């Protein structure tokens, strides 16, 4: 698909939510569907409205609307959707709700035909923020899955009616200010779910390429036995991103049947062996190095400076040292979201990993 983007707007520019951001055509909330209908009637024949998912972005950051719209545009380029961007400010003194409509059009293939996704942008101030479930329910494309990207801390208590409608709940645990509390909410959501809702932590999605590369290092017949002889682990994470490292360790622990130990920063194997780990805070990407020590063997996976590749290094006595360059995936949030949306199914290993690291998060 061509990435050429055309914003399908007939007006706009006035009544915008911030000085620099133009959210589209202002509309009365009760007339959104009608105005969207007019938008398509007035467009030319080369534009086709398409929608395969409802993609809702919820944020409480008044400065992020422009960036969020960019992300929606990138997502719409690959996954035609009904996008709803909600900026809520529950603490605003005046209660007010405003809405805008716009569309993202991308050239399809080599022809002139454009596939267009609608975006409805809401600003909900003060008490209006409590109208969130109604806003969501009344503007969904029917019969399409609902993906909600929750870009804030989860509130308590959770509105069961809203969460019950969500097919795929997307969040990013690396941005949480209070991860211990937020993870416990996620655990509650996971354990109480009866609807088949999928929980997607974007920090876990980012770890996919790490997990893929680390698994590859142990495919080899000579390396495989080392998995049962892991003695210690060393990770480098950005300051404040310890949970990223813990999620990766939780994955290793769940796969290798380790349990969290009562001792600080360590796991215990099924046969009672202690495996200490160190997470160093180093400025840079959320996670930049994983070292696994197994006796005299060392398995290292390090992110390149560009962030595009991993260098995997295996040093094992009696064999030739190996070095391999592997793809690391893209670091931009839109790429991570696209990776998540392209991958169907649940994340059973995430919940297993989470169980194992919850006792470690508060330490």
């Amino acid at each position, binding site marked *: *698909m061509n990435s050429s983007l055309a914003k399908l707007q007939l007006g706009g520019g006035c009544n915008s939510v911030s000085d620099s951001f133009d959210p589209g055509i202002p509309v009365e909330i009760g007339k959104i569907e009608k105005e969207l209908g007019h938008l398509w009637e007035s467009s030319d024949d080369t534009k086709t409205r*398409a929608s*395969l998912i409802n993609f809702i972005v919820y944020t409480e950051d008044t400065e992020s609307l422009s960036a969020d719209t960019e992300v929606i545009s990138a*997502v719409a380029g*690959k*996954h*035609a959707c009904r996008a709803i961007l909600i900026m809520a400010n529950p603490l605003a003194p005046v209660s007010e709700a405003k809405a805008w409509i716009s569309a993202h059009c991308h050239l*399809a*293939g080599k022809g002139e035909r454009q*596939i267009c996704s609608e975006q409805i942008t809401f600003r909900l101030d003060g008490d209006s923020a409590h109208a969130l479930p109604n806003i969501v329910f009344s503007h969904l494309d029917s019969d399409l899955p609902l993906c909600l990207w929750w870009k804030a801390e989860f509130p308590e208590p959770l509105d069961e009616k809203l969460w019950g409608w969500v097919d795929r709940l997307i969040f990013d645990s690396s941005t949480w200010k209070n991860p211990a509390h937020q993870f416990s909410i996620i655990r509650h959501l996971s354990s109480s779910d009866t609807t088949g809702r999928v929980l997607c932590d974007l920090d876990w999605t980012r770890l*996919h*390429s790490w*997990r*893929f*590369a*680390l*698994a*590859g*290092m*142990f*495919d*080899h*017949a*000579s390396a*495989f036995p080392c*998995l049962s002889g892991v003695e210690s682990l060393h990770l480098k994470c950005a300051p404040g991103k310890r949970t990223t490292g813990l999620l990766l360790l939780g994955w*290793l622990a769940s*796969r*290798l049947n380790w349990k969290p130990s009562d001792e600080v920063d360590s796991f215990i194997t099924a046969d009672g062996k202690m495996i200490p780990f160190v997470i160093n805070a180093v400025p840079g990407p959320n996670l930049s190095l994983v070292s696994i020590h197994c006796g005299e063997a060392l398995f290292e996976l390090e992110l*390149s400076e560009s962030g*595009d*590749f991993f260098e*995997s290094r295996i040093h094992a006595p009696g*064999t*030739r040292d*190996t070095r*391999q*360059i*592997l*793809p690391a995936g893209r670091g931009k949030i839109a790429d991570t979201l*696209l990776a998540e*949306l*392209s991958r169907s199914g649940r*994340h*059973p*290993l995430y919940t297993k990993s989470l169980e194992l690291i919850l006792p470690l998060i508060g330490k």
Partner: protein
Amino acid sequence: MPTEALRTNPLREGLTSRTMPDPCTLVIFGATGDLTHRKLIPALYNLAADGALPPAISVVGFARRDKSDEVFRTELEEAARKFSRQSLNDELWKSFASCVSYHRSEFDKFEGYQDLARKLDELDAARGTCGNRLFYLAASPDQFEVILENLRKSGLNKAREGSWARVIVEKPFGTDLPSARGLNDLVQNAFEESQTYRIDHYLGKETAQNIMVLRFANSIFEGMWNSRYIDHVQITASEPLGVEGRAGYYDKSGALRDMVQNHLLQLLCLTAMEPPAGLDADSIRDEKVKVLRSLRPLTGEDVFKHVIRGQYSAGAINGKRVAAYRDELNVDPESTTETYVALEVNVDNWRWAGVPFFIRVGKRLPKSGTEIAIHFKSVPPVLFKATGESIDDNVLVIRIQPDEGISLRMSAKMPGSSLRIEPVKMDFHYGTSFGKATPEAYERLLLDAMSGDPTLFARRDEVEEAWKFVDAIHAAWATRSDDLAFYSSGSWGPGEADELITRQASTWRRL
């Protein structure tokens, strides 16, 4: 055992739904040829870029020309830059290229294979490729015999305990049934059937793989997938290209052998087969073979009633004048080779009794495209008869290439006070529905061969049954040539082909 280790690596769980390929060495015979440059190396690079290759892999190019590893890698880099679906990243290419080497030898020199064996042992030790070998016959078919014989003599066809040796054979799998049997015997002198992977790249295409999902994972289709609801099926493969430097091969082969015997009969099998007992390779291939065995043989005069052969004359493609087939370089000026063929084929089994499958394939046609169109029966002409409206039949189209996808044509009432019925189309495009690039067929097939999954490769009996059907047509053609119809380049084929389908009260679909 390396394979066992891969299957029990607990870190693999949840990361991928397919078995990861084993560490291995891929030896490409014909490494300086077009296939290697255009398809194999770009496919391998894309697999590396997706992190799908095993950590330990070596690629050895085997060819006659004298060149160093460095020159070989440079040539491959140029090709990969030109033909890879993902743009080349220097760092990643460097890493991939470090596992590529060149082995110079004549195909018929036994010493060259002994040297190759030594080289592969060294690579096993240096790169941890565990003695697993995948031999890819990308050389011209007339070299297959000598390559296979030397692989056997040098013992390279036999894997050590705990390792494997496999061979990938590129089409054409013979030129008729006796030669296909001869080739199969030749291959099986060196490799068991379970070690043999006959590649038909159409089967590696996503849409071809999706035919089974469409049919057997959607309850709305399978119940209607029979003679009660389906009027006929059209399978089309058209291309604007002429023989493009392949005249030497093509003039002896023709469209029937080049395309119908393999690609199009495979698509027919996937369309017509019964649900397999399982998704394992042999269950699926058993069902495909049953379809081939159910094809009503076309022999004698029936061939001239149900098969139209054509050859392009001069014309225009994309506004440019192009020469007639007989005027192409290296083509016999009196050639009767068909560049177009249209067939009416019947599958004589319970499900398909009375449903003709129309197959057409041709060169120098106006557009490039391969598709399967399922034409459903008309509704009874009762309800809307009085309005005078004609109602188009429902058509389900599975587009194999380009623009892979599926569309369904149905009738809808036009808005307004009067009753006007118009056909509308529901369209699904792979490109716009799934947010990831469709891998090239060769990527999937190489990965499958490395993983030991032969599902998407043709089995010996499939190939031979297909030849049996095609040979009977050729036998009839050999008796006369006055049925050869000519069509202008840039047209949709000879008028006789239109008449063939008109008998079914239908017309060929416009692509």
